């Protein structure tokens, strides 16, 4: 079920096209990765979703209705460019930001107490931001983003400034929020976290969406039909069996255990390979070489850039 969607959004700044006909659909309770190189238009799209800027054309829907400015209270947004008032006490600041999201002072207090204790920063309530470390500030910022229990969360590079332990803490919190029914849009350049967290991705390059789909589907579409095997047996026999339907990319012989890397030309799947080889060799390990999100990102963006250049 689509909780949130964007349809045919266009935005032009002076002479630069920031978004061209971008459409997205995000399911309820999922984590959606919004990817793309720097300057692709991600931040513009996120600002349009947050009602900070208006699109030139196209529409944004929330729960099937056209989104209005009062809907921003249902969104929690952690922008990439983020900060806090340096000279204001953290507690006051958090209450202020929560009030701006429509919470009452009283309920903001209660919720903040809970989160400050959970993140072990309760003792910092009366400190000024300038006295805090970067990581601490990020914690406060994360709390102020989620304090009003938004149904839609937008995180733009949420892990910058965190050490691995705190990054993991935040990651767990994000997964917890999803499990509690929140829908999350997640923008990052860190592809390994995309693989860890996202259910679905869209890739934007030069103002256009060039890739969209569930992470598993995307990976399946980009499978290379390359397999890697460790086996015990005679290489010449193996090569003979594989015959014309395979290309051997690499092979190393280490006495008892040999390794071979092959490309399946017809792409019938892994079982065919095993059936062919089992009679002639003892297979020790077998692995389909799946591209990482990082590889996919680079391939897709580069090929789209080449296409643009040819035009």
């Amino acid at each position, binding site marked *: 079920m689509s909780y949130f969607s964007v349809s045919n959004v266009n935005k032009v*700044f*002076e002479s630069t096209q920031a978004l061209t006909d971008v459409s997205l659909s995000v399911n309820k309770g999922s984590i959606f990765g919004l990817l793309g190189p720097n300057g692709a238009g991600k931040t513009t799209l996120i600002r349009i979703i947050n009602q900070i800027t208006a699109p030139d054309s196209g529409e944004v829907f929330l729960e099937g209705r056209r989104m209005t400015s009062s809907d921003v*209270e249902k969104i929690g947004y952690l922008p990439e460019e983020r*900060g806090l008032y340096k000279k204001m006490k953290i507690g006051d600041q958090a209450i202020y930001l929560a009030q701006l999201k429509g919470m009452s002072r009283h309920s903001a207090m209660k919720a903040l107490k809970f989160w400050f204790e959970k993140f072990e920063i309760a003792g910092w309530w009366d400190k000024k931001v300038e006295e805090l470390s970067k990581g601490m500030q990020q914690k406060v*910022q994360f709390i102020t983003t989620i304090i009003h229990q938004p149904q839609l969360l937008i995180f733009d590079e949420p892990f910058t400034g965190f050490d691995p332990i705190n990054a993991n803490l935040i990651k767990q919190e994000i997964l917890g929020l999803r499990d509690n029914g929140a829908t999350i849009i997640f923008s990052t350049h860190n592809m390994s976290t995309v693989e860890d967290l996202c259910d679905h991705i869209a890739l934007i390059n030069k103002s256009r969406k060039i890739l969209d789909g569930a992470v598993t589907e995307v990976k399946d579409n980009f499978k290379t039909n390359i397999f890697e095997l460790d086996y015990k047996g005679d290489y010449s026999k193996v090569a003979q069996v594989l015959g014309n339907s395979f290309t051997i990319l690499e092979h190393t012989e280490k006495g008892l255990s040999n390794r071979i890397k092959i490309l399946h030309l017809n792409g019938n799947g892994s079982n065919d390979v095993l059936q062919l080889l089992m009679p002639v060799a003892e297979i020790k390990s077998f692995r389909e070489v799946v591209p990482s999100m990082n590889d996919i990102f680079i391939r897709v963006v580069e090929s789209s850039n080449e296409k643009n250049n040819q035009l």
Partner: protein
Amino acid sequence: MNKTWIILRREYLTRVLKKSFIVTTLLVPLLLAAMMVIPAWLASRQDKEVRNIAVYDETSLFLGQLGQEGFTKYQFIEKEKYEKIKANLEGTEYYALLYIPGNILTTNRVELFSPKQLPLEMGEQIERKLSQIIETDKRNKVVQEVGVPDLEQKLAATKTRIRVNTLQVTETGEQKKSSSVVAFIASYGMGFLIYFFVFMYGSLVMRSVMEEKKNRIVEVIVSSVKPYQLMTGKIVGTALVGLTQVAIWVILIFGVLTVLQSFFTPETAQQMGKSIMESQGQMAPMQQNMPVSQNQISEVLEMIGTLNIPLILFGFIFYFLSGYLLYSSLMGAVGAAVDNEEDTQQLVFPVTFPLILSIILLFSISKSPDGAIAFWASIVPFTAPVCMLARLPFSPPIWEVILSMVLMIVTTIGAIWVGSKIYKTGILMYGKKVTLKELVKWLRYKG
């Protein structure tokens, strides 16, 4: 709770609770009071000390005629004593030594010795006294020689002082007593006050916008509220800070004055007044013949009464609000457009230039409120807050006032529109050096 109100509240409270705000708010009136009171207090103290001046008069013309004035006493001495004192002036009880040479009537010169630097008014006092005595003496001789009876009284009757009563004739032919002095003071004072307030609190709005942009908090905030709500909260909140400061100043100044009044009894006040009169020398004898004080005070009051007080008050509030809105929305936009303090100057100057120009023009407008400069400066909206207000005490033609106000309203609305456009784009724009040309482009962005 309304979000603009939440922003306004934060803006107000953080500024008012700042140490620097509290310090300036409390110190300025105290300093002002000190500036007014300390010199007067010092003067009154100094004058209580009796100064004896030894006078050696070779001519014997002035014997016994100098007497005492204020706290200065003149004592005539003999030649031997004069020589003794002159040799060792510091060791005597005398404050100074006055030597009147025998040829004073031809040279018009006397000498005053003192081991200390003498106050200016002492020399003036002596000059006045001696001149008066010699003048009277010469005149008496002339009167006697001419032999006209009652010449003395006749001459005295020729003393004349003309006072101009300015009367302003209104369109209905009604005559009103007016005073250009009172109007000038009102005009200049109010023009300056508006300039000061608009400049000071306009910059405050600008700095506050810059702070939010620099801290990178602004994107978080505009994802919760509309930029115009943020800007409105900021501008109104800052205006209230200004009003709070002015209110505290007024209360403090009145408080300080009341306290001081209880310190200075009527006698000391009179004493102070007298010593000021004395120090102004020559004017005193002229005015002695005039029935002064009571009449003049009531006249000043009457003149203030002839000013169109409701119009001026309304004008003050109107130009105060519109001028502040006009400039603070533009300065807020400048704050949003720039990334750092250094780039600010370049953009602030074009915005504040008309304001600075109007303070330059203020003096000449207050002097000739119906001239061409005054007319144009009070019609053009950017200089109107200071300049039209400066003209109001002189009752300018009502159509000019209305034209100025209408233009002011239109321009202020325009400035708010322009300001909010630039503000919206600028606050989210980093790392770009902004030029005026760039700003014009921003106005065409949608949404």
